[in-house]
């Protein structure tokens, strides 16, 4: 009996042990598998847990947003009233507390964006996005272009300034106070998707953020592409294709303005023809990441003499990539020292575009070229020495550590020369052999303190304060437009711009001695400017000055919007805020007006089939407005794009050119001036094509695609171009994006393209009290679950505005306030 008993127990132990082993293995394996990310898939168990994962980010629609927060860094009490658009109105007893709270709020609503942008600036994308050659090349190029060393230089400059240092220290402390308050479950949802944690913020990150703006706005050039064109295009050809002063230019500084004689006269090296203009070079260096050349903007200001009220009106709409969250965060900051309202950059203190009790200001991009490349000769593979003025001189080597998610860390050695950092050498470009290398000189490398300009602008009371604030601003060059309650209007194209001899820096330059280095900078007081008490001033990324300006100032200028604005404002009198709203959202294409004349003049109607004739008539009857439902806009744009291809593609293919086609305005002017312009002929055919041939063929070639789009109901302009606002993580989170049913184009005032456009529209009427309107395509809260994530989008898309509430402290019982955050130190 006994033995049977034992054997039974033994059997049951086995019976129990096997399930234990199996179920334990399954449980452990499940937990392990669900607690780990697999490629782009986050740790599923952690991510789905309603107590830890993404569910914790789902915000209660009508939850109470009041908070009482205690931070011992604060000196006094700060009240933050959130209005019904979630715009914070910050009332602090001193500046440092205000910037602490600004940092805290930026982090609270936009932390992931701040980190992602500064990771990109610092070349740390692979660290978080993974082992992909594109990310690694991006990171190496960022670092080799001097983004990090430039930020370190900027940090030196603003930590040396006691005011800037205090502001940045307080801002950084505010960001970190928020980061320290986060738990695993309250992390922004993007961190949960990507599986990493925020790291401490620092003043260096503020500098990195501003460097990223320099890259976006002053990081474009085609020097390497132009260099490759030398075997086939002469410098004269290049200057024809990139006309420095378009015939139709409406410059920022009114025509006829007399400029001072130049304070500096850069001298062209005697050997420039043989060593520079005519020297052929074929190293096909490809820049991995170029900023969008149409990052642009509009701003204008009309004096009280042209307005109905008698007070000036200032308008600004910066055009940037549209994203969720927006690059902008709206707020009001009030202390005994400052009372300012406007949009801010999460990642940096102060208000960037806005107004205070006395003045308003706005910015557009100067589009000036402030980057040049030099060909360096290393002594040997070690890159420790390079030739300079007849001697081998030492480089400074910097070893950068690039972490890569899911792969080994990469160590990249960057050589710094007197010209700047070596971006491309044989370790980074297969095209470079021997000891040849390419260094970059860029004004963004230099010590400068851009933040101080905004700190001072926020407090400016008159023209002198404004001028003193902006005159030290160096990169990215901006057109600072200004209006005051006293009635003056002004604009300065401000930046640190090299004084170049004619043609300097269009191509890669010899870098074995000092003869091709920049010889100096254009003196600040010679930067283009105007200060008026009547009329109007405008800027829209065009060349700032007419041909009488005494310097060679290449850039990627955009001409048409300046013409539209100038023409409209010239005709307007008794201007109201509503007129300005209509102008900022205007869809009329002044470019198409000129281009259509050319198309209609040269099209050979008889050789078109029935479809061709139908589309021709649509363009003929078009009102030239690029409205969302306009089908003629699609036909026109397809036709003009097709014409451009017919004119340029043959040369571009045959000569292997990598630069973009010349500006459309330049093409139009050449056709108008010389209909036998040499590029019109298709060099791959034996016959000689005329302007009639290419215009007619342009339409014929566009017809099949147009018919296809018409057949599927996609011919309306907005359906054709399909504008979208993506989340910063792009198509990997497609459901965080929004379609925007808008018209417009980069060459019309309402400059929405596909993913790019007016990122903030602001109108400030300098009446008493100041009356201001604004809107941006996004929302204050970066959390995709929030009703404030995208609540401004429809208003923006409809061309409508919000009245901006410049709150007074005693209005704290106003019904627009939905919540109050109270900060104190005890």
């Amino acid at each position, binding site marked *: 009996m006994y033995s049977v008993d034992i054997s039974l*127990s033994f059997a049951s132990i086995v019976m129990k042990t096997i399930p234990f082993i199996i179920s334990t293995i399954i449980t452990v394996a499940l937990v392990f598998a669900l607690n780990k990310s697999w490629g782009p898939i986050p740790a599923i*168990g952690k991510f789905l*847990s309603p107590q830890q994962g993404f569910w914790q980010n789902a915000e209660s629609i009508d939850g109470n947003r009041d908070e009482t927060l205690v931070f011992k860094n604060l000196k006094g009490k700060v009240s933050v009233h959130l209005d019904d658009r979630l715009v914070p109105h910050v009332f602090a007893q001193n500046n440092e507390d205000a910037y602490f709270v600004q940092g805290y709020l930026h982090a609270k609503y936009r932390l992931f964006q701040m980190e992602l942008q500064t990771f990109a600036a610092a070349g740390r994308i692979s660290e978080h996005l993974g082992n992909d050659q594109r990310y690694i090349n991006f990171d190496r190029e960022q670092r080799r272009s001097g983004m990090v060393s430039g930020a370190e230089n900027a940090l030196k400059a603003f930590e040396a300034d006691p005011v800037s240092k205090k502001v940045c220290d307080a801002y950084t402390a505010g960001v970190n106070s928020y980061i320290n308050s986060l738990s695993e479950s309250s992390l922004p949802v993007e961190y949960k998707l990507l599986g990493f944690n925020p790291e401490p913020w620092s003043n260096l990150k503020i500098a990195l953020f501003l460097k990223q703006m320099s890259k976006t706005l002053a990081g474009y050039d085609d020097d390497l592409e132009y260099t490759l064109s030398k075997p086939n295009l002469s410098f004269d050809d290049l200057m024809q294709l990139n006309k420095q002063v378009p015939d139709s230019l409406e410059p920022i500084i009114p025509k006829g303005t007399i400029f001072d004689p130049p304070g500096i006269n850069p001298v062209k090296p005697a050997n420039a023809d043989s060593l520079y203009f005519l020297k052929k070079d074929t190293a096909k260096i490809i820049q991995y990441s170029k900023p969008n050349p149409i990052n642009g903007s509009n701003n204008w200001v009309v004096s009280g003499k042209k307005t109905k009220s008698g007070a000036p009106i200032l308008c600004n709409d910066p055009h940037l990539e549209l994203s969720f969250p927006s690059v902008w965060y709206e707020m009001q900051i009030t202390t005994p020292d400052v009372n300012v309202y406007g949009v801010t950059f999460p990642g940096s203190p102060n208000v960037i575009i806005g107004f205070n009790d006395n003045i308003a200001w706005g910015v557009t991009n100067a589009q000036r070229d402030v980057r040049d490349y030099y060909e360096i000769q290393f002594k040997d593979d070690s890159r420790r020495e390079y030739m300079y003025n007849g001697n081998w001189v030492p480089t400074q080597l910097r070893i950068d550590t690039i972490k890569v998610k899911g792969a080994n860390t990469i160590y990249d050695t960057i050589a710094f020369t007197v010209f700047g950092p070596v971006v491309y050498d044989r370790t980074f470009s297969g095209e470079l052999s021997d000891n040849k290398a390419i260094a970059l000189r860029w004004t963004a490398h230099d010590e400068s303190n851009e933040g101080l300009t905004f700190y001072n602008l926020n407090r400016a009371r008159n023209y002198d304060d404004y001028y003193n604030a902006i005159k030290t601003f160096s990169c990215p060059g901006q057109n600072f437009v200004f209006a005051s309650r006293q009635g003056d209007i002004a604009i300065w194209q401000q930046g640190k711009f090299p004084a170049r001899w004619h043609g300097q820096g269009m191509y890669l330059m010899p870098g074995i001695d000092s003869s091709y280095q920049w010889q100096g900078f254009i003196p600040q007081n010679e930067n283009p400017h105007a200060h008026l008490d009547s009329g109007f001033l405008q800027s829209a990324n065009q060349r700032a000055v007419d041909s009488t300006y005494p310097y060679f100032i290449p850039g990627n200028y955009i001409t048409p919007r300046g013409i539209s604005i100038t023409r409209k404002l010239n005709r307007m009198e008794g201007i109201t805020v509503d007129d300005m709203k209509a102008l900022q959202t205007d869809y009329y294409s002044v470019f198409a007006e000129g281009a259509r004349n050319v198309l209609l003049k040269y099209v050979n109607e008889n050789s078109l089939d029935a479809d061709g004739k139908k589309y021709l008539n649509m363009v003929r009857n078009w009102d030239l407005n690029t409205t969302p439902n306009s089908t003629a806009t699609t036909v026109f744009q397809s036709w003009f794009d097709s014409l451009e291809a017919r004119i340029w593609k043959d040369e571009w293919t045959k000569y292997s050119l990598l630069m973009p086609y010349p500006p459309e305005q330049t093409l139009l002017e050449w056709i108008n001036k010389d209909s036998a312009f040499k590029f019109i002929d298709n060099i791959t055919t034996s016959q000689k094509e005329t302007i009639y041939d290419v215009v007619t063929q342009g339409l014929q070639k566009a017809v099949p695609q147009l018919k296809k789009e018409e057949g599927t109901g996609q011919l309306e302009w907005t359906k054709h171009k399909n504008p979208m606002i993506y989340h910063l993580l792009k198509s990997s989170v497609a459901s965080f994006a929004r379609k925007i049913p808008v018209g417009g184009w980069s060459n019309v005032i309402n400059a929405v393209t596909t993913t790019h456009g007016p990122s903030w529209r602001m109108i400030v009427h300098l009446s008493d009290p100041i009356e201001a309107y604004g809107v941006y395509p996004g929302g204050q809260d970066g959390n995709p679950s929030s009703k404030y994530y995208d609540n401004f989008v429809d208003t923006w898309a409809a061309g409508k505005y919000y009245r901006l509430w410049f709150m007074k402290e005693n209005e704290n019982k106003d019904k627009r306030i939905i919540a109050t955050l109270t900060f104190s130190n005890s």
Partner: protein
Amino acid sequence: MRFILALLLTAAICFLAGLRLEWWSIALVAFFVALLIPQRIAGAFLSGFLGVFIMWSVLAVWIDSKNGNSLSQKMAEIFKLGGSSILLILATALIGGLVGGFAAMAGSSLRPVPRIRRY
């Protein structure tokens, strides 16, 4: 009875543990509850499974309704669930349930061998 008790204990203790601990605390809780409360293995699995399944789905439904389904719909698109909040809630509960179920099974199978009845 034991089944209901195990289920409720699993749900309640998992909830409390989840307030402070990592998400996988559900496995530890389900394991120990099953270790303490005698059940057949299949019953233990089911009580662990349902305990976590119900707790996670109730929480998810509650959070989701307060949020107006906004985030769940977006997430359900990212995870190729056709934008369906319901499917995402089910997926959430299922994942939690499976971990809870297998952990409970392991706990239950580690119980001392019950005395063999003599006939």
